[in-house]
């Protein structure tokens, strides 16, 4: 018996039925009506005023989330990478563990913190004399997306920085570079692959979330994920839901393509650097 055959049940049964076919169904529902091809749903998505604003909201929330995660997460990853290996392995667990934890639970925790009479209101009341209420605003959604996805930024950055050959840094210092120069000319360019995978790992889920905007946006912050969820689960309209899903996939593919391009360009300039 050839060992290759062991993979056949998965390759020829499970994978086509449960991975490939579902995607084709989404495509089918988005482009067919009563068995004939149509682009009406696509047109509807781009001409009706319901969908594009939600898409923009999702994109800017995802962009801000990604930027803040990068700014907050890079120093964490960098500090971890300079620590002794054994300590770093344990400390990094603290930052990586939440990544695998239920996002719903972590979002829910923020609802308790931000809700009327919650900890956040008490703190702002103590500081300014007036309890401030940010639940059900874009700010609340942003805090939660940053919180939820920060570990996804830290992990790839940490892995890249840890694997980086430290002799490059030493060489730069020996050749007279200042600390800032070493960082901008050596460490930062070498960590671009980590930055890129971090950005993709944060941007994609942040753009497509619906639980966060439902729990902390309270219907006032409309994101594309929530629109898809409503269409499919409440209004029983798989056509528009599927069309928007395809749009989401295309956006994901575009962002990945941009990232790949940046990565390639960077590695080619990196090549001429040496």
């Amino acid at each position, binding site marked *: 018996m050839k060992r290759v055959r062991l993979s056949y049940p*998965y390759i020829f049964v499970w994978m086509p039925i449960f991975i490939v076919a*579902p995607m084709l*169904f989404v495509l089918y529902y988005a482009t067919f009506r009563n068995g004939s091809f149509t682009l009406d749903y696509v047109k509807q998505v781009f001409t009706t005023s319901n969908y594009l604003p939600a898409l923009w909201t999702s994109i800017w929330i995802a962009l801000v989330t990604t930027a803040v995660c990068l700014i907050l997460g890079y120093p964490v990853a960098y500090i971890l990478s300079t620590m002794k290996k054994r300590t770093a392995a344990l400390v990094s667990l603290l930052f990586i563990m939440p990544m695998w934890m239920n996002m719903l639970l972590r979002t*829910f925790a923020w609802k308790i913190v931000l809700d009327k009479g919650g900890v956040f209101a008490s703190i702002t009341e103590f500081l300014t004399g007036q309890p401030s209420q940010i639940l059900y605003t874009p700010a609340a959604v942003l805090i939660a997306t940053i919180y939820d996805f*920060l570990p996804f930024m830290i992990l790839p950055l940490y892995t890249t920085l840890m694997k980086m050959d430290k002799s490059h840094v030493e060489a730069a210092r020996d050749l007279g570079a200042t600390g800032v120069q070493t960082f901008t000319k050596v460490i930062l360019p070498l960590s671009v692959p980590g930055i890129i995978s971090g950005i993709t790992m944060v941007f994609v889920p942040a753009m497509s979330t*619906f639980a966060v905007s439902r729990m902390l946006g309270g219907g006032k912050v409309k994101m594309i994920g929530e629109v898809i969820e409503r269409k499919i689960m409440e209004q029983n309209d798989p056509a528009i839901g599927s069309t928007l899903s395809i749009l989401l996939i295309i956006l994901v593919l575009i962002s990945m393509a941009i990232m790949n391009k940046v990565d390639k360009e960077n590695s080619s300039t990196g090549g001429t650097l040496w």
Partner: protein
Amino acid sequence: MKKFLNFIKGAYLGIVVLFMYLPIAIMIFMSFTESRSAMRWQGFSFGAYRKLFSAEVGIADPLITTLVVAVVSSLLATLIGTVTAIGLHSMKKRPRSIVESITQLPMVNPDLVTGVSMMLLFAFIGLRPQLGLLRLIIAHVTFNIPYVIFSVMPKLRQSSDTLYEAAMDLGCTPIQALTKVVIPDIMPGIVSGLILAFTLSLDDFTISYFVGGTKTNLSMLLFSKTAKGGVGTEFCALSALMFLVVGILLLIVNIRSIRQEKEAAEQKKKVMRKA
């Protein structure tokens, strides 16, 4: 100067850790309050936990659903994933990389899209919403298989093919060679994959939400009760318990993998010294 810099570094890490764990800590703290709302602290009590397990909340059925789906789907995914990985390992490079990229789809796709797409599939093949348990199990097996495959594959690459051939030369049948030599050799990868699959299944909300039909798991229960309006403390209690269980599982997986890396490094050192 150096001391000061180290202090700054430590302080920064501390602040971020605080940011990451404080909301969870507050939530767990609030699960012990006597008041009915999760916003005001009113003396210590286990009332929230008592209420959580009362008939009013109806936690029994979602709890059983979550556990059954996690156990069955992680075992099935581990079986299918391991067998597939062994097959894939001896496949030619070109077809293998095609299969690998399709396998990655559920990991790359937004969960929302995976959930929607599986829901459409189930509707088409006539797996009615009343068959929620079966739908949940199929969906969870599907999103777990890639994680099992990708935690077993590296172990296969590390283990040497000559072991398998040696076993055959010494008179093993191919099946014996697999079960007695190859599988024990890649066992750490299989176990990590199994625990990871179990945790992911226990934790999943988005995909389950779309395919669950009439069945509700714990995350779905939590979402339906907390998405809108005020929140009762019993859901803080539920969250606290879920955190505890998943946290312990993750700690086991991660410490295992750190220890394995250390052992592998020491093994390598020994071999190098001998050579």
